[in-house]
């Protein structure tokens, strides 16, 4: 049996698919988008997360820390915090255990038109684990939120096992994609091409980042690429969240976006309308 690493199971996700759903966050991501809101999901290994804003600076955590020079997320400080501000983010879990947890309320979610969505991190980074979990989830509506950055055959297998796909298309230009997301977009576009031709219903998401991908050129290129995709339900343009940096300090990192977060992004739905594609702004 395979093991995976997850970092959260959220109830009643609102923007992750139809009906009432739960969302599983798989840990680890091969991309390094500088606007990432979930920095705790980047590394596959568990990390310590601290909500400093409410800290009383009572020093109880320091007094018990066995690794003062560098934190290895041993968790010794967690029980001593009087306000419960410290957490280990990341839990290794066997596929059976995860399936059991998800099935606990499956009747409830099914009754309200929902199911489960796999998000991350990048869930496809743990593709084999994900496939094993999907295989064991009978009669549940399943969806994924993915960057599409993975091997083409794995992508096909996972798409085949799911009911609904949310996929990001952050940037069409390959060199800019590399610059802002840390990886080439060649394989992403290949997988998107496959999705456009498949019979699986899907949504394309564009996190609109000021100065990065909010050019008319990028919108047009995306729209042109998607033109004619028969199961594309809509394109969702997601507003950049100004609170995106909130969690960085909690995992001992600093938020350094390589764009101007104060600038207002240009939202343009026309290129999609012109290609006959429905789009919404969230």
């Amino acid at each position, binding site marked *: 049996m395979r093991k995976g690493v997850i970092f959260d*199971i*959220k*109830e*009643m996700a*609102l*923007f992750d698919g139809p*009906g*009432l759903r739960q969302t599983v966050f798989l840990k680890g991501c091969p991309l390094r988008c500088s606007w990432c809101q979930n920095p705790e999901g980047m590394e596959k290994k568990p990390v310590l997360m601290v909500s400093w804003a409410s800290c009383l600076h009572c020093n*109880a955590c320091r007094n018990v820390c066995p690794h003062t020079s560098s934190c290895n997320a041993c968790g010794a400080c967690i*029980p*001593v*915090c*009087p306000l*419960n501000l410290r957490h280990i983010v990341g839990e290794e879990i066997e596929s059976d255990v995860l399936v059991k947890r998800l099935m606990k*309320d499956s009747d*409830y979610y099914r*009754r*309200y*038109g929902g199911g489960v969505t796999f998000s991350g991190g990048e869930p496809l980074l743990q593709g084999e684990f994900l496939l094993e979990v999907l295989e064991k989830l009978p009669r549940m509506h399943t969806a994924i939120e993915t960057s599409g950055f993975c091997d083409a055959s794995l992508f096909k297998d996972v798409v085949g096992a799911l009911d609904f796909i949310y996929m990001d298309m952050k940037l069409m230009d390959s060199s800019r994609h590399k610059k802002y997301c840390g990886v080439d977009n060649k394989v992403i576009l290949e997988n998107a091409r496959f999705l456009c031709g498949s019979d699986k219903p899907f949504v394309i998401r564009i996190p609109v980042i000021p100065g990065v991908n909010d050019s008319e050129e990028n919108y047009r290129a995306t729209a042109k690429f998607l033109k004619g995709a028969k199961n594309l339900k809509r394109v969702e343009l997601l507003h950049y969240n100004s609170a995106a940096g909130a969690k960085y300090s909690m995992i001992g990192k600093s938020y350094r976006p390589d764009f101007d977060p104060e600038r207002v992004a240009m939202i343009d739905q026309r290129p999609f309308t012109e290609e006959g594609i429905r789009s*919404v702004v*969230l």
Partner: protein
Amino acid sequence: MISERIRKMRKAFVEEKIQKKYWQEETDHYVLAREFSRQKEDSIDRATERLLFVLDHEKPVVFPDEKIAFLRTVRTIPELYTEEEAKEIARKHRIHEKGDVCNINVDYSMLLGVGFDAKKAELRDRIADFRQRGKEKEAHYLSQQIRILSSVEDLVDRYRKEAEKVGNTTVASSLSHVPSGRATSWLEAMQFFRIIHYVMWCGRNYHNTLGRMDQYLYPYFHHDMEAGLYTKEQAQELLEEFFLTFNRDSDLYPGMQQGDNGQSLVLGGIGPDGKDSYNELSELCMLSSLDLKVIDPKINLRVNKNTPFSLYVLGTKMTRQGLGFPQYSNDDVVIPGLEKLGYSHEDACSYVVAACWEFIIPNKAMDIPNIDALSFAGAVEKACFDFLESSPTYEEFEKHVDEQIEKDAASICEHTKGVFLYPAPFLSLMMTGCEETGRDVSLGCVYNNYGIHGTGIATAADSLAVIKKYVYGDKSIGKAHLLQCLHDDFKSDPILCNNLRYRAPKMGNDDDFVDSIATHLLDQFASVLKGKKNDRGGIFRAGTGSAMYYVWHAAKLPATADGRHSGEGLPANYSPSLFCRSFGPISIIKSFSKQHLENAINGGPLTLEVHDTVFKTEESLEKVAMLVKSYIDLGGHQLQINTVNREQLLDAQKHPEKYRNLIVRVWGWSGYFVELDKCYQDHIIQRMELS
């Protein structure tokens, strides 16, 4: 879309509060009581004379463009008794709250549909009958009611003249028909209602609930709509004006906090025929409230397993406005629950909510649904100190908890004896049987039951779960050690406190281990009240509400086994503990729908707070509506959902001047956040954990 006329009216009464310009000076509170005392007048005469005094002192205010008139100007409603007399009464009796009849739902149609002239004629016949039978006291009582009706008519006449003076022919015309005659149109019915409601407040009766307005005003509404008197837009505009009348005088109403005025409106509901009574007027009430965005009237929706999803969506749109309502109650649970308590099927089907959430029966119940409260957490605590050490098993210990609940409940019931309520002769005109018997409603009605709230059930269940799991189960916590911690507020073991607070089982996480303990506690509460009678011939009803008792109980309570510190807050109503890190709203809903709620049906909602981002799109809004529906489907009894934004509230504490209009729901009512005491503000902020 709100019309220009209504927008201006809303601005004037709700934002600028121009009505304050018309208020008369505060006067001597004992001006009448001293004279009453000298004359040794009885309570009925005092209540009558006071109401006549206030009505006489009222000065008519009519605005040129309004269609429904009446505005309070008298600020001081004088006392009935001198301070010495009041003390003497309190020594001999139990005085509930302020002593006035409150929190009941009169049948407005008993006057609306009859008119004062016909009512007076009816009363005269009855007086003659009573006199014939030598029942002087009863005859005198009804004659006092006639004097009240005449005094109201005098005031109405002054209003009519004023309306003519300012050129308001609409109001002048309505007042030439009602209240002397019965209402013959929807507008007249609303004007008539306004007068009745106004007079109730003038008699110092408070928490005058509105009840099933969509039912008793429906015939008038339906008739006028059928006759083509109004387009839908015009009807909504008129209803919005009517709704605004509930926001005119509310600063003069007594209440625990501003906004706590009990103007609850109940929409829909299954009738004795099994059909849902939600109608076009109910829908118009929803739309008007959505349009107006004011805190009164407070909307309550009666729903059931067949309620169309679209109503939940409409309700959720209302929730999105952050007014703290609608509150939902589930007919599938409430009606059978009330029947089990002895209410007839027909009466149970007509239930409404009292000021906050307690279920009461219109025109038949002189129930006092909030007479006291049991502290679940307090009972567990006492059992801990007295019996934890000596109990060899958890089952043994649980028996002591049960006994403590029984003891506390018995003591509460014992202390309800000798309730004295000030007479309410005007309200009695709209309560079943008062006229026939010549008896004031303050002395009792068809139902005379007392409701007892239950506070801190989650804290109690969580504490017992700790004892069951760690003290008796894996024995990882020693009895003496736990007791020491409860005594010294965990000073001797702060780490244990953290673990119990954050890592022990909690009600609200859909964990049967702890949820079943809550079920047991609630069952025990209901079962110890079963068969007990109060001294008005009524019964006692167990409930899941807290009202303000949770604040008082928390202040007195030492540290609890769930890791709660001494004096730290208890959850309001039927809700998870304040430091429960819940998995989410679905877990909460599942945890809080497992109990046998129909056995503890005094009322008291599960309270969920959701962050305003959940309403971002139509789709996400529908998910909130589904969540609400799911609580009803699972057998939950009552639910309120609050919309709050934590950052907003923190900022509001720093800059109250910027947030004068920010509305929150505190226990059963909505109020302006900046007008609340700081302890309530802090509580609300602390409670915002869901999103």
